[in-house]
Protein backbone atom coordinates (compact mmCIF):
# COMPACT_ATOMS: atom_id res chain seq x y z
CA UNK A 1 0.00 0.00 0.00
CA UNK A 2 1.52 3.26 -1.12
CA UNK A 3 0.80 6.77 0.07
CA UNK A 4 -1.13 7.82 -3.10
CA UNK A 5 -3.30 4.72 -2.79
CA UNK A 6 -4.10 5.56 0.84
CA UNK A 7 -4.98 9.17 -0.03
CA UNK A 8 -7.25 8.08 -2.86
CA UNK A 9 -8.87 5.35 -0.79
CA UNK A 10 -9.60 7.78 2.04
CA UNK A 11 -11.00 10.28 -0.48
CA UNK A 12 -13.28 7.66 -2.03
CA UNK A 13 -14.52 6.32 1.29
CA UNK A 14 -15.08 9.79 2.75
CA UNK A 15 -17.03 10.76 -0.39
CA UNK A 16 -19.22 7.69 -0.14
CA UNK A 17 -19.90 8.14 3.58
CA UNK A 18 -20.71 11.81 3.04
CA UNK A 19 -23.07 10.88 0.20
CA UNK A 20 -25.05 8.73 2.60
CA UNK A 21 -25.04 10.96 5.68
CA UNK A 22 -25.40 14.53 4.40
CA UNK A 23 -28.86 16.09 4.73
CA UNK A 24 -28.96 18.12 1.54
CA UNK A 25 -29.54 15.94 -1.52
CA UNK A 26 -27.41 18.13 -3.81
CA UNK A 27 -24.54 17.89 -1.33
CA UNK A 28 -24.99 14.12 -1.43
CA UNK A 29 -24.63 14.13 -5.22
CA UNK A 30 -21.52 16.29 -5.03
CA UNK A 31 -20.00 13.97 -2.41
CA UNK A 32 -20.87 10.98 -4.61
CA UNK A 33 -19.08 12.70 -7.48
CA UNK A 34 -16.02 12.99 -5.26
CA UNK A 35 -16.06 9.24 -4.69
CA UNK A 36 -16.50 8.64 -8.46
CA UNK A 37 -13.46 10.79 -9.08
CA UNK A 38 -11.51 8.96 -6.38
CA UNK A 39 -12.39 5.65 -8.03
CA UNK A 40 -11.24 6.98 -11.41
CA UNK A 41 -7.96 8.07 -9.83
CA UNK A 42 -7.55 4.56 -8.38
CA UNK A 43 -7.96 3.11 -11.88
CA UNK A 44 -5.37 5.55 -13.17
CA UNK A 45 -3.01 4.58 -10.38
CA UNK A 46 -3.32 0.96 -11.51
CA UNK A 47 -2.28 2.05 -15.02
CA UNK A 48 -5.73 1.57 -16.56
CA UNK A 49 -5.88 4.91 -18.37
CA UNK A 50 -8.78 4.06 -20.64
CA UNK A 51 -11.04 2.82 -17.83
CA UNK A 52 -10.07 5.75 -15.60
CA UNK A 53 -10.86 8.43 -18.16
CA UNK A 54 -14.08 6.73 -19.23
CA UNK A 55 -15.05 6.61 -15.56
CA UNK A 56 -14.58 10.40 -15.31
CA UNK A 57 -16.30 11.06 -18.64
CA UNK A 58 -19.33 8.90 -17.89
CA UNK A 59 -19.76 9.14 -14.12
CA UNK A 60 -18.54 12.65 -13.27
CA UNK A 61 -19.59 14.18 -16.59
CA UNK A 62 -22.91 12.48 -17.20
CA UNK A 63 -24.26 10.39 -14.31
CA UNK A 64 -23.70 13.10 -11.68
CA UNK A 65 -25.39 15.69 -13.90
CA UNK A 66 -28.26 13.27 -14.55
CA UNK A 67 -28.68 12.72 -10.80
CA UNK A 68 -28.69 16.47 -10.22
CA UNK A 69 -31.32 17.01 -12.91
CA UNK A 70 -33.50 14.24 -11.51
CA UNK A 71 -33.32 15.69 -7.99
CA UNK A 72 -34.12 19.20 -9.19
CA UNK A 73 -37.04 18.06 -11.33
CA UNK A 74 -38.74 15.74 -8.86
CA UNK A 75 -39.01 17.59 -5.56
CA UNK A 76 -37.45 20.24 -3.41
CA UNK A 77 -33.74 19.76 -2.96
CA UNK A 78 -33.83 21.07 0.57
CA UNK A 79 -33.03 18.92 3.61
CA UNK A 80 -35.56 16.21 4.34
CA UNK A 81 -37.48 15.95 7.59
CA UNK A 82 -36.93 12.30 8.38
CA UNK A 83 -33.83 11.24 10.38
CA UNK A 84 -30.67 10.08 8.63
CA UNK A 85 -30.71 6.64 10.23
CA UNK A 86 -33.88 4.71 9.49
CA UNK A 87 -35.56 2.71 12.26
CA UNK A 88 -34.28 -0.67 10.98
CA UNK A 89 -30.63 0.32 10.57
CA UNK A 90 -29.46 -2.73 12.57
CA UNK A 91 -30.96 -5.14 10.00
CA UNK A 92 -29.51 -3.07 7.18
CA UNK A 93 -26.02 -3.07 8.64
CA UNK A 94 -26.24 -6.84 9.22
CA UNK A 95 -27.17 -7.39 5.54
CA UNK A 96 -24.37 -5.08 4.43
CA UNK A 97 -21.84 -6.91 6.63
CA UNK A 98 -23.03 -10.25 5.23
CA UNK A 99 -22.67 -9.09 1.61
CA UNK A 100 -19.22 -7.70 2.37
CA UNK A 101 -18.15 -10.95 4.05
CA UNK A 102 -19.31 -13.06 1.08
CA UNK A 103 -17.57 -10.81 -1.44
CA UNK A 104 -14.36 -10.72 0.58
CA UNK A 105 -14.43 -14.50 0.96
CA UNK A 106 -15.02 -14.95 -2.80
CA UNK A 107 -12.11 -12.67 -3.67
CA UNK A 108 -9.75 -14.30 -1.18
CA UNK A 109 -10.73 -17.82 -2.27
CA UNK A 110 -10.28 -17.13 -5.99
CA UNK A 111 -6.89 -17.56 -7.60
CA UNK A 112 -6.85 -13.84 -8.52
CA UNK A 113 -5.00 -12.81 -5.39
CA UNK A 114 -2.35 -15.51 -5.71
CA UNK A 115 -1.69 -14.94 -9.40
CA UNK A 116 1.20 -12.56 -9.87
CA UNK A 117 0.69 -10.36 -12.89
CA UNK A 118 3.59 -8.73 -14.67
CA UNK A 119 3.71 -5.09 -13.64
CA UNK A 120 2.07 -3.06 -16.39
CA UNK A 121 2.83 0.62 -16.33
CA UNK A 122 0.47 1.49 -19.18
CA UNK A 123 -2.43 -0.58 -20.36
CA UNK A 124 -2.61 0.67 -23.92
CA UNK A 125 -5.90 1.47 -25.60
CA UNK A 126 -5.07 -0.72 -28.62
CA UNK A 127 -5.44 -4.13 -26.87
CA UNK A 128 -8.79 -3.00 -25.48
CA UNK A 129 -9.91 -2.05 -28.98
CA UNK A 130 -8.64 -5.35 -30.40
CA UNK A 131 -10.48 -7.32 -27.75
CA UNK A 132 -13.70 -5.35 -28.34
CA UNK A 133 -13.49 -5.77 -32.11
CA UNK A 134 -12.57 -9.48 -32.17
CA UNK A 135 -13.44 -11.42 -29.07
CA UNK A 136 -16.36 -9.38 -27.78
CA UNK A 137 -17.72 -8.04 -31.06
CA UNK A 138 -21.26 -9.40 -30.56
CA UNK A 139 -21.86 -7.79 -27.14
CA UNK A 140 -20.36 -4.59 -28.52
CA UNK A 141 -22.70 -4.63 -31.51
CA UNK A 142 -25.72 -5.26 -29.29
CA UNK A 143 -24.74 -2.41 -26.99
CA UNK A 144 -24.17 -0.18 -29.99
CA UNK A 145 -27.61 -1.02 -31.36
CA UNK A 146 -29.23 -0.32 -28.00
CA UNK A 147 -27.47 3.03 -27.61
CA UNK A 148 -28.21 4.05 -31.22
CA UNK A 149 -31.88 3.26 -30.63
CA UNK A 150 -31.80 5.47 -27.52
CA UNK A 151 -30.07 8.23 -29.47
CA UNK A 152 -32.61 8.10 -32.31
CA UNK A 153 -35.37 8.07 -29.70
CA UNK A 154 -33.96 11.27 -28.20
CA UNK A 155 -33.87 12.90 -31.64
CA UNK A 156 -37.47 11.84 -32.33
CA UNK A 157 -38.54 13.32 -28.99
CA UNK A 158 -36.74 16.55 -29.84
CA UNK A 159 -38.37 16.80 -33.26
CA UNK A 160 -41.09 19.38 -33.58
CA UNK A 161 -44.57 17.93 -33.51
CA UNK A 162 -46.95 18.64 -36.33
CA UNK A 163 -48.88 21.70 -35.29
CA UNK A 164 -52.56 20.88 -34.96
CA UNK A 165 -55.04 23.44 -36.22
CA UNK A 166 -57.11 24.76 -33.33
Amino acid at each position, binding site marked *: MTVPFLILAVLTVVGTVAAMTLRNLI*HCVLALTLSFAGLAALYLQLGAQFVG*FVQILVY*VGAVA*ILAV*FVIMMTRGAGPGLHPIFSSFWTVGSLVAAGVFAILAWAICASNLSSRILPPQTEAAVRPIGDALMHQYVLPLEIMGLLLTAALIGAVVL*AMQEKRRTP
Partner: protein
Amino acid sequence: MSEAVSHIDQIFVIFLHWLLGGLPAAARPAVSAIISVIAILVVFALLFAITTVLERKGLGRMQNRYGPNRVGPFGFFQPIADGVKSLTKEDIVPHGADQIVHFLAPVLLVIAAFLAYAVLPIGRNMVLVNLNAGVLYFFAVGSLVELAVFMAGWSSRNKYSLLGAMRAIAQMISYEVPLVLASVVILMAAGSLSTVSIVDMQARYSGVWPHWFLFRPWGFAGFILFMIAATAESNRSPFDLPEGESEIIAGYYIEYSGFKFALFFLGEYLGMFATSAMAITLFLGGWAAPFSFLTWIPSYLWFFAKLMVLIAVFIWIRGTLPRLRMDQLMNFAWQFMLPMTLINIFVAGVWHFMPSGLGRWVLCSVLLIAPCILLIGSLKQQKSTEVRKYRFAD
Protein backbone atom coordinates in the same frame (compact mmCIF):
# COMPACT_ATOMS: atom_id res chain seq x y z
CA MET B 1 17.03 21.09 -40.69
CA SER B 2 20.25 22.85 -39.83
CA GLU B 3 21.79 22.81 -36.36
CA ALA B 4 21.03 26.39 -35.38
CA VAL B 5 17.41 26.20 -36.53
CA SER B 6 16.80 23.02 -34.60
CA HIS B 7 18.39 24.61 -31.50
CA ILE B 8 16.05 27.59 -31.71
CA ASP B 9 13.13 25.20 -32.21
CA GLN B 10 14.09 23.24 -29.10
CA ILE B 11 15.26 26.23 -27.03
CA PHE B 12 12.76 25.69 -24.21
CA VAL B 13 13.42 21.95 -24.06
CA ILE B 14 17.18 22.56 -23.93
CA PHE B 15 16.68 25.21 -21.24
CA LEU B 16 14.62 22.81 -19.13
CA HIS B 17 17.29 20.10 -19.45
CA TRP B 18 19.95 22.62 -18.46
CA LEU B 19 17.92 23.64 -15.40
CA LEU B 20 17.43 20.01 -14.38
CA GLY B 21 21.07 19.14 -14.98
CA GLY B 22 22.26 20.25 -11.53
CA LEU B 23 19.59 18.34 -9.63
CA PRO B 24 19.74 14.81 -8.20
CA ALA B 25 18.11 12.26 -10.50
CA ALA B 26 15.34 11.44 -8.02
CA ALA B 27 14.03 15.02 -7.93
CA ARG B 28 14.10 15.56 -11.69
CA PRO B 29 10.63 14.30 -12.74
CA ALA B 30 8.86 16.32 -10.05
CA VAL B 31 10.83 19.53 -10.68
CA SER B 32 10.42 19.14 -14.44
CA ALA B 33 6.66 18.77 -14.04
CA ILE B 34 6.45 21.79 -11.71
CA ILE B 35 8.44 24.00 -14.10
CA SER B 36 6.29 22.92 -17.06
CA VAL B 37 3.08 23.54 -15.12
CA ILE B 38 4.26 27.03 -14.12
CA ALA B 39 5.12 27.75 -17.76
CA ILE B 40 1.63 26.71 -18.90
CA LEU B 41 -0.03 28.74 -16.11
CA VAL B 42 1.93 31.88 -16.95
CA VAL B 43 1.71 31.65 -20.76
CA PHE B 44 -1.99 30.95 -20.99
CA ALA B 45 -2.96 33.42 -18.27
CA LEU B 46 -1.00 36.06 -20.24
CA LEU B 47 -2.75 34.97 -23.42
CA PHE B 48 -6.05 35.44 -21.58
CA ALA B 49 -5.06 39.00 -20.65
CA ILE B 50 -4.03 39.79 -24.23
CA THR B 51 -7.18 38.22 -25.66
CA THR B 52 -9.52 40.25 -23.44
CA VAL B 53 -8.10 43.52 -24.74
CA LEU B 54 -7.94 42.27 -28.34
CA GLU B 55 -11.53 41.09 -28.15
CA ARG B 56 -12.76 44.41 -26.78
CA LYS B 57 -10.78 46.28 -29.41
CA GLY B 58 -12.04 44.02 -32.19
CA LEU B 59 -15.66 44.15 -31.07
CA GLY B 60 -15.37 47.90 -30.72
CA ARG B 61 -14.14 48.20 -34.27
CA MET B 62 -16.98 46.04 -35.56
CA GLN B 63 -19.52 48.10 -33.62
CA ASN B 64 -18.10 51.40 -34.85
CA ARG B 65 -16.60 52.58 -31.55
CA TYR B 66 -13.10 52.78 -30.09
CA GLY B 67 -13.05 50.14 -27.39
CA PRO B 68 -10.70 50.55 -24.41
CA ASN B 69 -8.20 53.34 -25.16
CA ARG B 70 -7.36 55.00 -21.84
CA VAL B 71 -4.85 52.75 -20.05
CA GLY B 72 -1.43 52.70 -21.66
CA PRO B 73 -0.73 52.99 -25.39
CA PHE B 74 -3.94 52.25 -27.35
CA GLY B 75 -5.46 50.86 -24.15
CA PHE B 76 -3.24 47.78 -24.16
CA PHE B 77 -2.65 47.89 -20.39
CA GLN B 78 -6.39 47.53 -19.78
CA PRO B 79 -6.01 43.93 -18.42
CA ILE B 80 -3.75 45.23 -15.62
CA ALA B 81 -6.35 47.78 -14.63
CA ASP B 82 -9.04 45.08 -14.78
CA GLY B 83 -6.94 42.79 -12.61
CA VAL B 84 -6.31 45.46 -9.98
CA LYS B 85 -9.99 46.36 -9.99
CA SER B 86 -11.22 42.81 -9.52
CA LEU B 87 -8.64 42.13 -6.80
CA THR B 88 -9.58 45.21 -4.77
CA LYS B 89 -13.34 44.75 -5.03
CA GLU B 90 -15.31 43.38 -2.12
CA ASP B 91 -16.05 39.67 -2.36
CA ILE B 92 -19.80 39.52 -1.72
CA VAL B 93 -21.35 36.18 -0.89
CA PRO B 94 -25.17 36.18 -0.71
CA HIS B 95 -26.69 35.47 2.69
CA GLY B 96 -28.70 32.52 1.43
CA ALA B 97 -25.87 31.02 -0.59
CA ASP B 98 -24.30 27.67 0.13
CA GLN B 99 -20.96 29.02 1.34
CA ILE B 100 -18.70 26.04 0.61
CA VAL B 101 -20.11 25.11 -2.78
CA HIS B 102 -20.23 28.78 -3.75
CA PHE B 103 -16.52 29.04 -3.00
CA LEU B 104 -15.54 25.77 -4.66
CA ALA B 105 -17.34 26.35 -7.99
CA PRO B 106 -14.93 28.90 -9.57
CA VAL B 107 -11.95 26.97 -8.20
CA LEU B 108 -13.12 23.73 -9.81
CA LEU B 109 -13.87 25.55 -13.07
CA VAL B 110 -10.37 27.00 -13.37
CA ILE B 111 -8.73 23.71 -12.31
CA ALA B 112 -10.69 21.80 -14.95
CA ALA B 113 -9.81 24.40 -17.60
CA PHE B 114 -6.10 24.25 -16.79
CA LEU B 115 -5.98 20.44 -16.56
CA ALA B 116 -6.86 20.18 -20.25
CA TYR B 117 -3.55 21.75 -21.24
CA ALA B 118 -1.57 18.76 -19.94
CA VAL B 119 -1.96 16.79 -23.17
CA LEU B 120 -1.76 19.61 -25.74
CA PRO B 121 1.48 19.57 -27.73
CA ILE B 122 2.56 23.22 -27.87
CA GLY B 123 5.69 22.53 -29.92
CA ARG B 124 7.97 19.72 -31.00
CA ASN B 125 8.77 17.71 -27.81
CA MET B 126 6.80 20.29 -25.84
CA VAL B 127 3.96 18.47 -24.14
CA LEU B 128 3.50 18.05 -20.39
CA VAL B 129 2.48 14.38 -20.49
CA ASN B 130 2.21 12.18 -23.55
CA LEU B 131 -0.76 10.12 -22.43
CA ASN B 132 -1.69 6.95 -24.21
CA ALA B 133 -5.33 8.05 -24.15
CA GLY B 134 -4.68 11.80 -24.47
CA VAL B 135 -7.76 12.77 -26.46
CA LEU B 136 -9.96 10.83 -24.07
CA TYR B 137 -8.31 12.64 -21.14
CA PHE B 138 -9.06 15.98 -22.78
CA PHE B 139 -12.78 15.25 -23.10
CA ALA B 140 -12.96 13.68 -19.63
CA VAL B 141 -11.47 16.80 -18.04
CA GLY B 142 -13.74 19.00 -20.15
CA SER B 143 -16.78 17.31 -18.65
CA LEU B 144 -15.77 18.57 -15.19
CA VAL B 145 -16.71 22.09 -16.31
CA GLU B 146 -20.39 21.15 -16.38
CA LEU B 147 -20.26 20.17 -12.72
CA ALA B 148 -18.54 23.46 -11.80
CA VAL B 149 -21.20 25.43 -13.69
CA PHE B 150 -23.96 23.58 -11.89
CA MET B 151 -22.30 24.19 -8.52
CA ALA B 152 -22.06 27.90 -9.28
CA GLY B 153 -25.66 28.19 -10.43
CA TRP B 154 -27.20 26.13 -7.65
CA SER B 155 -25.18 27.43 -4.70
CA SER B 156 -25.95 31.08 -5.44
CA ARG B 157 -29.60 30.48 -4.47
CA ASN B 158 -30.80 32.79 -7.17
CA LYS B 159 -33.45 31.92 -9.75
CA TYR B 160 -31.56 33.56 -12.59
CA SER B 161 -28.30 31.84 -11.82
CA LEU B 162 -30.03 28.46 -11.57
CA LEU B 163 -31.76 29.05 -14.91
CA GLY B 164 -28.46 30.05 -16.46
CA ALA B 165 -26.74 26.96 -15.08
CA MET B 166 -29.51 24.72 -16.41
CA ARG B 167 -29.24 26.30 -19.84
CA ALA B 168 -25.47 25.96 -19.81
CA ILE B 169 -25.53 22.30 -18.77
CA ALA B 170 -28.22 21.37 -21.31
CA GLN B 171 -26.23 23.09 -24.02
CA MET B 172 -22.88 21.62 -23.00
CA ILE B 173 -24.22 18.06 -22.79
CA SER B 174 -25.98 18.40 -26.16
CA TYR B 175 -22.92 19.73 -27.94
CA GLU B 176 -20.45 17.41 -26.25
CA VAL B 177 -21.83 14.54 -28.36
CA PRO B 178 -21.02 16.14 -31.75
CA LEU B 179 -17.74 17.48 -30.35
CA VAL B 180 -16.52 13.98 -29.49
CA LEU B 181 -18.02 12.38 -32.60
CA ALA B 182 -16.39 14.99 -34.85
CA SER B 183 -12.98 14.07 -33.48
CA VAL B 184 -13.61 10.33 -33.90
CA VAL B 185 -12.74 10.55 -37.63
CA ILE B 186 -9.24 11.72 -36.70
CA LEU B 187 -8.82 8.87 -34.24
CA MET B 188 -9.91 6.47 -37.00
CA ALA B 189 -7.40 7.92 -39.45
CA ALA B 190 -4.52 8.23 -36.99
CA GLY B 191 -5.20 4.94 -35.21
CA SER B 192 -4.14 6.51 -31.92
CA LEU B 193 -5.58 8.43 -29.00
CA SER B 194 -2.28 10.12 -28.21
CA THR B 195 -2.15 13.79 -29.18
CA VAL B 196 1.59 13.60 -29.83
CA SER B 197 1.33 10.81 -32.40
CA ILE B 198 -1.66 12.51 -34.07
CA VAL B 199 0.47 15.63 -34.63
CA ASP B 200 3.46 13.55 -35.73
CA MET B 201 1.30 11.94 -38.42
CA GLN B 202 0.37 15.37 -39.77
CA ALA B 203 3.88 16.86 -39.64
CA ARG B 204 4.92 15.31 -42.97
CA TYR B 205 4.92 16.78 -46.41
CA SER B 206 4.32 15.58 -49.96
CA GLY B 207 6.09 18.17 -52.06
CA VAL B 208 5.46 21.42 -50.22
CA TRP B 209 1.98 20.41 -49.06
CA PRO B 210 1.39 19.20 -45.50
CA HIS B 211 -0.51 16.06 -44.48
CA TRP B 212 -3.03 17.92 -42.33
CA PHE B 213 -6.29 16.12 -41.77
CA LEU B 214 -8.05 19.35 -42.73
CA PHE B 215 -7.26 18.63 -46.39
CA ARG B 216 -9.55 15.59 -46.62
CA PRO B 217 -13.31 15.81 -47.20
CA TRP B 218 -14.09 14.22 -43.84
CA GLY B 219 -11.36 16.25 -42.14
CA PHE B 220 -12.75 19.52 -43.45
CA ALA B 221 -16.31 18.63 -42.47
CA GLY B 222 -15.05 17.39 -39.11
CA PHE B 223 -13.18 20.63 -38.49
CA ILE B 224 -16.26 22.78 -39.22
CA LEU B 225 -18.46 20.58 -37.01
CA PHE B 226 -15.81 20.55 -34.26
CA MET B 227 -15.51 24.33 -34.28
CA ILE B 228 -19.31 24.84 -34.13
CA ALA B 229 -19.54 22.41 -31.21
CA ALA B 230 -16.52 24.08 -29.57
CA THR B 231 -18.23 27.47 -29.80
CA ALA B 232 -21.26 26.02 -28.05
CA GLU B 233 -19.11 24.23 -25.46
CA SER B 234 -17.37 27.45 -24.49
CA ASN B 235 -20.70 29.32 -24.24
CA ARG B 236 -19.68 31.92 -26.78
CA SER B 237 -21.83 33.92 -29.13
CA PRO B 238 -24.01 32.88 -31.01
CA PHE B 239 -24.48 30.15 -28.39
CA ASP B 240 -24.22 32.44 -25.34
CA LEU B 241 -27.73 31.81 -24.02
CA PRO B 242 -26.49 30.74 -20.58
CA GLU B 243 -25.43 34.32 -19.92
CA GLY B 244 -28.13 36.08 -21.91
CA GLU B 245 -27.90 39.55 -20.38
CA SER B 246 -31.32 40.64 -21.60
CA GLU B 247 -33.30 37.74 -20.12
CA ILE B 248 -31.35 36.17 -17.23
CA ILE B 249 -28.91 39.02 -16.48
CA ALA B 250 -25.64 37.07 -16.57
CA GLY B 251 -26.56 33.45 -15.96
CA TYR B 252 -24.77 31.31 -13.44
CA TYR B 253 -22.29 33.90 -12.23
CA ILE B 254 -24.61 36.75 -11.25
CA GLU B 255 -23.88 36.33 -7.56
CA TYR B 256 -20.12 36.34 -7.97
CA SER B 257 -18.12 39.50 -7.47
CA GLY B 258 -14.53 40.57 -7.33
CA PHE B 259 -11.89 38.04 -8.23
CA LYS B 260 -14.26 35.07 -8.29
CA PHE B 261 -16.06 36.75 -11.17
CA ALA B 262 -12.72 37.20 -12.92
CA LEU B 263 -12.00 33.50 -12.33
CA PHE B 264 -15.18 32.61 -14.23
CA PHE B 265 -14.00 34.71 -17.15
CA LEU B 266 -10.57 33.12 -16.93
CA GLY B 267 -12.10 29.63 -16.95
CA GLU B 268 -14.31 30.45 -19.91
CA TYR B 269 -11.46 31.83 -22.01
CA LEU B 270 -9.11 29.02 -21.01
CA GLY B 271 -11.76 26.54 -22.14
CA MET B 272 -12.00 28.35 -25.46
CA PHE B 273 -8.21 28.29 -25.92
CA ALA B 274 -8.07 24.61 -24.98
CA THR B 275 -10.74 23.51 -27.45
CA SER B 276 -9.14 25.69 -30.15
CA ALA B 277 -5.78 24.09 -29.37
CA MET B 278 -7.41 20.68 -29.60
CA ALA B 279 -8.88 21.60 -33.00
CA ILE B 280 -5.38 22.66 -34.08
CA THR B 281 -3.92 19.39 -32.79
CA LEU B 282 -6.54 17.23 -34.47
CA PHE B 283 -7.12 18.99 -37.78
CA LEU B 284 -4.57 21.76 -38.38
CA GLY B 285 -1.38 19.81 -37.82
CA GLY B 286 -0.57 21.05 -34.31
CA TRP B 287 2.84 22.72 -34.32
CA ALA B 288 3.63 21.67 -37.91
CA ALA B 289 4.37 24.38 -40.46
CA PRO B 290 1.83 24.79 -43.29
CA PHE B 291 4.49 24.39 -46.03
CA SER B 292 7.66 22.33 -46.05
CA PHE B 293 9.81 25.38 -46.85
CA LEU B 294 8.59 27.16 -43.69
CA THR B 295 9.80 24.54 -41.20
CA TRP B 296 12.67 26.82 -40.14
CA ILE B 297 10.20 28.91 -38.11
CA PRO B 298 10.06 27.38 -34.58
CA SER B 299 7.22 24.96 -33.96
CA TYR B 300 5.78 26.77 -30.91
CA LEU B 301 5.42 29.97 -32.98
CA TRP B 302 3.31 28.05 -35.49
CA PHE B 303 1.14 26.68 -32.70
CA PHE B 304 0.49 30.11 -31.22
CA ALA B 305 -0.03 31.66 -34.67
CA LYS B 306 -2.74 29.10 -35.43
CA LEU B 307 -4.24 29.66 -31.97
CA MET B 308 -4.39 33.44 -32.52
CA VAL B 309 -6.09 32.91 -35.91
CA LEU B 310 -8.77 30.72 -34.33
CA ILE B 311 -9.26 33.26 -31.50
CA ALA B 312 -9.67 35.98 -34.12
CA VAL B 313 -12.35 33.86 -35.81
CA PHE B 314 -14.12 33.47 -32.47
CA ILE B 315 -14.08 37.26 -31.93
CA TRP B 316 -15.23 37.87 -35.50
CA ILE B 317 -18.17 35.46 -35.08
CA ARG B 318 -19.09 37.11 -31.76
CA GLY B 319 -19.23 40.47 -33.47
CA THR B 320 -21.25 39.16 -36.40
CA LEU B 321 -23.97 36.70 -35.38
CA PRO B 322 -27.02 37.30 -33.18
CA ARG B 323 -27.89 34.96 -30.33
CA LEU B 324 -29.89 31.78 -31.01
CA ARG B 325 -33.11 30.89 -29.24
CA MET B 326 -33.18 27.82 -26.97
CA ASP B 327 -35.28 25.65 -29.32
CA GLN B 328 -33.15 26.64 -32.31
CA LEU B 329 -30.07 25.69 -30.33
CA MET B 330 -31.40 22.24 -29.44
CA ASN B 331 -32.83 21.57 -32.91
CA PHE B 332 -29.51 22.46 -34.43
CA ALA B 333 -27.64 20.11 -32.11
CA TRP B 334 -29.86 17.07 -32.51
CA GLN B 335 -31.14 17.48 -36.06
CA PHE B 336 -28.08 18.83 -37.85
CA MET B 337 -24.87 18.35 -35.85
CA LEU B 338 -25.50 14.79 -34.69
CA PRO B 339 -26.57 13.32 -38.09
CA MET B 340 -23.75 15.16 -39.84
CA THR B 341 -21.09 13.84 -37.47
CA LEU B 342 -22.41 10.28 -37.86
CA ILE B 343 -22.39 10.63 -41.66
CA ASN B 344 -18.89 12.04 -41.42
CA ILE B 345 -17.68 8.95 -39.56
CA PHE B 346 -19.24 6.78 -42.28
CA VAL B 347 -17.54 8.85 -44.99
CA ALA B 348 -14.18 8.47 -43.24
CA GLY B 349 -14.68 4.70 -43.36
CA VAL B 350 -15.57 4.83 -47.08
CA TRP B 351 -12.45 6.94 -47.73
CA HIS B 352 -10.27 4.43 -45.91
CA PHE B 353 -11.41 1.46 -47.99
CA MET B 354 -11.56 3.11 -51.43
CA PRO B 355 -8.53 3.16 -53.74
CA SER B 356 -6.81 6.52 -53.75
CA GLY B 357 -7.55 8.78 -56.66
CA LEU B 358 -10.05 11.36 -57.82
CA GLY B 359 -12.95 8.89 -57.44
CA ARG B 360 -12.93 8.85 -53.66
CA TRP B 361 -12.61 12.62 -53.48
CA VAL B 362 -15.76 13.03 -55.60
CA LEU B 363 -17.73 10.29 -53.86
CA CYS B 364 -16.84 11.43 -50.33
CA SER B 365 -17.57 15.07 -51.11
CA VAL B 366 -20.97 14.16 -52.57
CA LEU B 367 -21.69 11.92 -49.58
CA LEU B 368 -21.04 14.90 -47.28
CA ILE B 369 -22.55 17.79 -49.23
CA ALA B 370 -25.86 16.10 -50.16
CA PRO B 371 -26.97 15.27 -46.59
CA CYS B 372 -25.77 18.69 -45.45
CA ILE B 373 -28.08 20.42 -47.95
CA LEU B 374 -30.97 18.08 -47.10
CA LEU B 375 -30.58 18.64 -43.35
CA ILE B 376 -30.38 22.41 -43.72
CA GLY B 377 -33.49 22.27 -45.89
CA SER B 378 -35.41 20.30 -43.25
CA LEU B 379 -34.30 22.76 -40.56
CA LYS B 380 -35.50 25.67 -42.68
CA GLN B 381 -38.91 24.11 -43.33
CA GLN B 382 -39.73 24.15 -39.65
CA LYS B 383 -39.40 27.88 -39.49
CA SER B 384 -42.92 29.29 -39.27
CA THR B 385 -43.46 32.83 -40.45
CA GLU B 386 -46.90 33.49 -39.02
CA VAL B 387 -47.61 36.52 -36.87
CA ARG B 388 -46.73 35.75 -33.28
CA LYS B 389 -49.61 35.61 -30.82
CA TYR B 390 -48.89 36.70 -27.26
CA ARG B 391 -50.99 34.97 -24.65
CA PHE B 392 -51.03 37.76 -22.10
CA ALA B 393 -49.89 40.91 -23.81
CA ASP B 394 -52.73 41.32 -26.36
